[in-house]
């Protein structure tokens, strides 16, 4: 009975009627609240409907019902990570997705590729959130410093006006000194802004990924770098394809096999650190 309701939900889901599908899955859950696949399916419907909080709840229920070590729960972890990203909780999304990615790799589960993509997206979101906070804070500090410079200029100008009124200086002298004060104040503001721009990495500095993190075949930042016997590192996917086909090292043309490729963990760590500080590089 409950299974029939799920089948009806699946049909509507395929047709793109996510609200209808959600309704049938809810009816199925009302009949049997111990079947994890009902929750998994309702979670994905709710992701399509961008009901993130409900989707998070369903994905968590499914994972609890499957048991967290069960490979069947990996799909629910993928949905959970998506819901958490939707809820602007990227750090939690990252933790869920990277745990699931490791499990999925060792279980050779079909979700590995999806999970690795969401790990990157979560990294990007974490970086974006930090970047926004940093810029806001920077803006506030910059604003305060600029206000100080402005106040200082007004005080000096007030003194100058006083001297003019008391006849200590003439009109021409006043005009010259006033202009000099203005120029000084503007120069100070410019210098302060430049200093802030220099220390504000992401916004002002040119966005370039260093060449040593770029794969020579795909020209993208490396995610899973491996090293050839001749000592050059490439991202696994491209080099494996080429070596499979040609049987030689792309630089030295010495015969080699895919089995000769070794993980380059140090470079992997460098790429990961770069991505942590430069989330934009995911789309670069």
């Amino acid at each position, binding site marked *: 009975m409950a299974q029939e309701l799920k089948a009806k939900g699946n049909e509507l889901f395929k047709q793109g009627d996510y609200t209808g599908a959600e309704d049938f899955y809810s009816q199925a859950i009302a009949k049997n609240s111990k079947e994890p696949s009902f929750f998994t399916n309702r979670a994905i419907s709710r992701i399509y409907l961008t009901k993130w909080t409900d989707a998070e709840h369903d994905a968590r229920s499914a994972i609890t019902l499957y048991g967290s070590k069960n490979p069947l729960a990996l799909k629910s972890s993928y949905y959970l990570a998506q819901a958490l990203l939707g809820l602007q909780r990227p750090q939690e999304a990252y933790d869920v997705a990277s745990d699931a990615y490791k499990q999925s790799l060792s279980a050779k589960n079909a979700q590995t590729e999806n999970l690795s993509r969401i790990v990157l997206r979560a990294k990007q979101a974490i970086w974006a959130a930090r970047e926004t906070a940093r810029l806001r804070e920077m803006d506030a500090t910059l604003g305060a410093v600029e206000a100080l410079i402005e106040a200082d200029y007004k005080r000096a100008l007030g003194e100058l006006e006083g001297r003019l009124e008391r006849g200590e200086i003439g009109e021409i002298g006043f005009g010259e000194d006033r202009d000099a004060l203005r120029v000084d104040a503007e120069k100070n503001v410019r210098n302060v802004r430049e200093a802030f721009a220099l220390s504000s990495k992401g916004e002002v500095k040119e966005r370039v990924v260093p060449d040593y993190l770029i794969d*020579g*075949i*795909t*020209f*993208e930042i490396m995610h899973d770098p491996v090293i050839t016997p001749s000592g050059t590192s490439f991202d696994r996917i*491209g080099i494996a*394809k*080429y070596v499979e*086909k*040609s049987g030689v090292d*792309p*630089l030295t*043309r010495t015969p080699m096999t895919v089995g000769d490729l070794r993980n380059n963990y140090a470079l992997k760590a460098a790429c990961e650190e770069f991505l942590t500080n430069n989330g934009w590089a995911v789309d670069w």
Partner: protein
Amino acid sequence: MFATKRLSKELLKMKDHVPPGIEIVKSDNLEEWQMDIKVLDENPLYQNQTYRLKFMFSSKYPIEPPEVQFITCDASTGHPRTIPMHPHIYSNGIICLDLLGSAGWSPVQTVESVCMSLQSMLTANNRDERPPGDQEFITHNRRRIRDINFVYEDDNV
């Protein structure tokens, strides 16, 4: 496959900077590009001449090589282009260069590096002649460029 992304990055890099004597003529789609190259030294065979190259990319680029050949342009276009005289370049523009064949290609090569190799292949040449059997070849060859089994025995040219 990553052909599209890789080519758009090559383009981005070249828009920033191209080596002397190399110019992008056409790169509006990611299947066929055209490049102009010039020989920079005083070699009398190629002095003051510009030659046009056509690059064709498959979806397997850069795992597989692009198909590269010289093409002609009519004088009426305002940019007359001929096929350079060279013992490894057939009169229909097909080039006999090991790095352009499936066996000699490496995915670390780029459009730019291919252009530079061809520049230096011209620079180093002093023979005003076509490959042996040129007429035969251009009338009978129907194979794809990268599948032609050239014999690269002559390393002096």
